[in-house]
């Protein structure tokens, strides 16, 4: 059985150790915030979602039982659930994000290297359905395997692969003008 690298820190944070809490934050906050930002496309909502996820961590840390689930998988799942909740409560978040979609005709392929590309990719991501977006981000941005992503999303590996395939297809169609770069 693999040893969870976070188990000790979670146990210490559960006992009120502030340094352990800070270490957990330093280890996971950047990834969680990036994921939430890409899911919600709204900095303030993303920060709130991540704060809520960490609040859940602090309240559950004392009862955390190592070995049942990998801590990082659990934290990703909590963060994603916070994002889904916000998308459900505020459907306008999706619309706001989609409004930033760039005009495919405007960018020359040289734009691949600059910040404009990131904005276009993020806008295309924002147009994907939430679960496809989550699967794409976990596998292609966070570098998770299909198995890990499936576990985080609470799906079978086949279902996760299907989400990924549909998401990649849509992404490629939306970013067709960048294809040859």
């Amino acid at each position, binding site marked *: 059985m693999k040893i969870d690298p976070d188990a000790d820190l979670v146990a210490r*944070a559960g006992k*009120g150790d*502030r340094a352990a*809490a*800070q270490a957990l*934050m330093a280890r996971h*906050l*950047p990834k969680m*915030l*990036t994921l939430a*930002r*890409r899911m919600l496309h709204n900095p303030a909502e*993303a*920060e709130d979602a*991540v*704060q809520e996820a*960490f*609040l859940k961590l*602090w*309240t559950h840390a*004392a009862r955390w039982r190592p070995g049942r689930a990998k801590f990082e998988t659990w934290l990703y799942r909590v963060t994603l659930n916070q994002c889904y909740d916000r998308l459900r409560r505020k459907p306008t978040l999706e619309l706001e994000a989609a409004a930033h979609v760039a005009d495919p005709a405007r960018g020359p392929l040289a734009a*691949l290297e600059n*910040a404009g*590309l*990131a904005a276009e*990719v*993020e806008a295309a991501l924002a147009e994907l359905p939430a679960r496809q977006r989550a699967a*794409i*981000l976990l596998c*292609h*941005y966070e570098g998770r395997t299909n198995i890990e992503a499936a576990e985080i999303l609470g799906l079978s590996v086949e279902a996760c692969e299907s989400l*990924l*395939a549909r*998401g*990649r*297809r849509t*992404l*490629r169609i939306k*970013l067709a003008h*960048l*294809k040859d770069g």
Partner: protein
Amino acid sequence: MAEKEPIDRNLASAEAQSDAAFAARVLTGLPDVPVPGVLEARILADFDAVAAKRKASLRALVLHPVQSLRDAVWPGAPAWQPASILALSLLIGLAAGTLVPSSALTSVSSVQDETAAVDTVPDLNLSGDF
């Protein structure tokens, strides 16, 4: 027809691989999101609040039985009153236990007078004058 099926499958697989390569290429270029210091402070403040709440509930868990006992014994009195009475009684008990010699407590008088056995015939002198 039978030959067409594997060809279609291969084409689909090649297309899926190409899509995956494209997604990997465009997504790896995305920049990381910097973490604002204010967010870190907010999350740590949450941690402090949860830790303080947990400590307070632990204290309440210990103090509650003591307080309810105090209210049962001496309702409305400040905690030090029943506590000091209890401590004083304990002290008296301990002092008595250690200072009073044990022989004084367990000794039995060797002289036993006015005893009568109930299973023997009483020795009554009926000839005497009343």
